[in-house]
């Protein structure tokens, strides 16, 4: 089942949009500027356009269709009210350069969200500007760099990163002009303390640590790690990708982190959109607040509006909200203030869950992962066998079916109507299958996944060809990725081309 390209549906003269007529006297067009050839865009009727995209949507798998245990991506179910909230015209139809007086509602929402995130994480200040997790990481590293430079210490150029880290960590480090020093993990999946000690000196800006890490494990030596890094004058960066395990469980700032980014779209529930938009706010300790990317939102007493007498307690009507540039800001990371639409969703989510609901979400995320881990480790090798947090990593290989790889298991899962786990990451596990069920899955859906995984293990022994050829029931079969990379065809070209 495939769908034609929209260009292949195109017929000259069709259009799916009717525009107003010109009601002003026409101006003379600048002839040197007018394009001679029309842009190469499809021409389709509205019904053809709608059917095209609806058919394409049917070739997709999303959280609203079924189980999506894509490790590290927190594919939880996202409440529909979030979508309604961010589309309120009072939010969606505001211009980022309107005067602050006319967007007090937006600024207040951002201010409250900054405060909620600070409370959940324990940090003193938050900037909502970064547009995605990797963007927040980049901000965090620039903040650490700026902190040392501001002290006059420019000799520090290194960032320590465990070998289990997301690829964005080293990539963000390079973008900041800094050097990556990779640290080993120990046999229990923690940072190897000896390796850490061996690399700590006055060239270290700081350490980037995902906790729980990408194995889904809470580092057993976290306090010691933080103590050592701080002792060497370095800062601790927390990759907040896995915050879904920690809401109401522990505040990262109290665990010793100095900087952390949040993935609002993961932890605080924005649908992932096929790859964005996201939002990656960054939180810092008081000492680092002045380096945050700006602008951030501050609350000030509105002298005109406040009618309080001496000793009265101010209420919400006494304040106004303003955009403010942190004193030693690393600078602006994108135009305007961040992905506001995602902020509205996160605000909505936090308001509906409250402290108790957030903790419940984290508890059930961890419960679900441990339940799956307990059941699946009976059949699939579990390299780090201890209680996990919100996700865990299995080896997708079976002792009695040596020719079967993690990829085969993943592809076969699609035939059971499920999205596969993350494959081949983290890199320190052979044939990794990284499984993150999230808190929104019922026991029935977890049991169905276990059943599928157990049947696949059985098939691996009895009908390995079924796995090698999988998936069998999807719109297309396995795709030739080598060919795609060797002869890149990255756009449609007219047939005569």
């Amino acid at each position, binding site marked *: 089942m495939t769908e034609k390209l929209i260009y292949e549906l195109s017929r000259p003269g069709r259009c799916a949009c009717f525009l107003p007529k010109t009601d002003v006297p026409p101006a003379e*067009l600048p002839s040197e500027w007018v394009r001679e050839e029309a842009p190469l865009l499809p021409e389709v009727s509205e019904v053809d356009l709608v059917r095209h995209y609806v058919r394409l949507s049917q070739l997709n798998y999303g959280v609203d269709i079924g189980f999506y245990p894509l490790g590290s991506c927190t594919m939880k179910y996202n409440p529909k009210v979030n979508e309604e909230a961010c589309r309120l015209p009072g*939010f969606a139809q505001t211009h980022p350069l309107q005067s602050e007086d006319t967007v007090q509602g937006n600024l207040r929402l951002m201010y409250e969200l900054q405060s909620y995130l600070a409370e959940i994480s324990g940090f003193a200040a938050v900037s909502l500007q970064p547009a995605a997790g990797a963007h927040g990481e980049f901000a965090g590293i620039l903040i650490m760099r700026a902190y040392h430079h501001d002290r006059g210490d420019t000799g520090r150029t290194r960032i320590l990163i465990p070998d289990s880290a997301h690829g964005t960590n080293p990539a963000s480090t390079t973008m900041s*002009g800094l050097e990556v020093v990779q640290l080993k993990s120990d046999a229990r999946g923690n940072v190897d303390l000896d390796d850490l000690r061996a690399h700590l000196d006055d060239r270290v800006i700081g350490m980037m640590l995902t906790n729980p890490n990408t194995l889904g494990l809470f580092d057993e030596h976290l306090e010691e790690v933080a103590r050592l890094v701080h002792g060497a004058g370095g800062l601790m960066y927390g990759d907040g990708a896995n915050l879904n395990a920690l809401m109401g469980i522990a505040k990262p700032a109290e665990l010793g982190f100095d900087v952390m980014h949040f993935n609002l779209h993961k932890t605080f529930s924005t649908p992932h959109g096929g790859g964005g938009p996201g939002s990656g706010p960054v939180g810092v300790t008081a000492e680092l607040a002045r380096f945050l990317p700006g602008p951030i939102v501050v609350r000030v007493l509105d002298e005109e509006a406040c009618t309080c007498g001496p000793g009265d307690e101010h209420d919400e009507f006494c304040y106004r909200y303003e955009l403010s540039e942190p004193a030693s800001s690393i600078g602006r990371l994108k135009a305007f203030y961040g992905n506001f639409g995602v902020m509205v969703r996160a605000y909505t989510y936090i308001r509906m869950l409250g402290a108790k609901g957030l903790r419940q979400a984290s508890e059930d995320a961890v419960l679900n992962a441990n339940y799956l881990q307990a059941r699946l480790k009976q059949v699939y090798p579990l390299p780090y066998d201890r209680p996990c947090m919100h996700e865990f990593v299995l080896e997708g290989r079976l002792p009695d079916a040596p020719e079967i790889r993690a990829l085969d298991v993943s592809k076969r899962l699609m035939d059971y109507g499920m999205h596969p786990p993350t494959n081949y990451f983290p890199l320190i596990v052979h044939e990794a299958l990284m499984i993150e069920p999230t808190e929104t899955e019922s026991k029935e859906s977890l049991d169905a996944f276990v059943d599928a995984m157990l049947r696949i293990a059985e098939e691996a022994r009895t009908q390995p060809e079924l796995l090698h050829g999988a998936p069998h029931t999807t719109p297309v079969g396995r795709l030739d990725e080598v060919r795609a990379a060797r002869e890149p065809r990255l756009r449609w070209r007219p047939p005569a081309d």
Partner: protein
Amino acid sequence: MSYVPHTDADRREMLAAIGVRSVEELFAVVPESVRFPELRLPEPLSEAEVMEELRALADSNADLDHLACFLGAGAYRHYIPSVVQHVIGRSEFYTAYTPYQPEISQGTLQTIFEYQSMICGLTGMEVSNASHYDGATAMAEAVIMAMSVARGKRRKAIVAPTVHPQYRQVVRTYTQGMGVRVVGDEDLTADLSRLADLIDGDTACVIVQVPDFLGGLESPATLSALAEATHRAGALFVVSVDPISLGLLKPPSEYGADIVVGEGQSLGLPPSFGGPYLGFFACREEYVRRMAGRLVGETVDSQGRRGYVLTLATREQHIRRERATSNICTNEALCALAASVYLAALGPRGLRQVAELCYHRSHYAARRIAELPGFAVLDSRPFFKEFVVRCPAPVEEINDELLEWDILGGYDLGRDYPHLAGHMLLCVTELNSRAQIDDLVMALRIIGEGGGE
């Protein structure tokens, strides 16, 4: 309300299967002194209550459904056809993630492939990636790519003073650790010819915006000459462009662009207080392996059927780690889908109509405003939909008074360009009817006469 389905019975059964007595036991590894902190957050609300609270917040803003908007400066109000919301509202699209598993992601993959095709069709370039966070970050990534094309041997990026001020800031933020010198905008009054004098063997790229931040269009000949000077020095010519303008105006490929970037918000996305937006990025094919971001390519499946996959991933962070071309992972896929639907709905003729409406209506507005006593339009160059008006009073004051007329006035250029204090950047799109423009002109006349007090 946690959106969690478990009953207490479920939890008990699961804990038994795990072999622990309580959920708390699973967290024994968390240092006890900081375990289970109290979170001081407001009491949870029901769905009805939260929507009431949000509506109150939203209603306390002055929004563009209730104001005539003449503000642009990087975020624009254009008509969004109904089909756009209906397509991106399909949860098969919006509840998926990055299409790592192509067999069950052909919908997302094909729409990205079509998006890439349309961005190429619009800009005249050979390849496009799947998106950046916004126009500003796309520009910053263009600088990084230009440095990479020069294999790190060139350390200078020249940026025109008429590039969006926030974009110039973002370029500086992005490159602060890379040892790049961003030059060209020290003199904010400089014109493009002075940029050419800065080009040398250390120059990685030259960046211009078309139409520029002040709305104006240099001639294609001037831009071509700058592109040639750039190329003679072995550097890349980067153009940031308004995609709506390309319905009518020459694409950057025709005046020498090597990389074309821009803000795609105009293509079917609401202004949404600054985000989420869409950075588009297109370039010559020879640079494709140095591009940032996701790329979708065509291939075949095991039975020879056409299909699409993420490709050339060896550029990317999850494969190449510290040697990746960029750290970008989550981008703006759903916004790119909105832009694709927008462009497909309009087609070349619809987009031309939108562009012409912007052009004619903005020129009508400029002519009328130029007639007002006290106001002047700086129109030495052609413009597309934005133009600069010199005002008889501080822009902020005029805008405050315009609000009384339910009009959102233009951008105060004095904020970024001291020599343009008292000048307003006005934007007119196809959504500003003649009646709205006439109202603006009347309001300005009265305000200019001091009658608005």
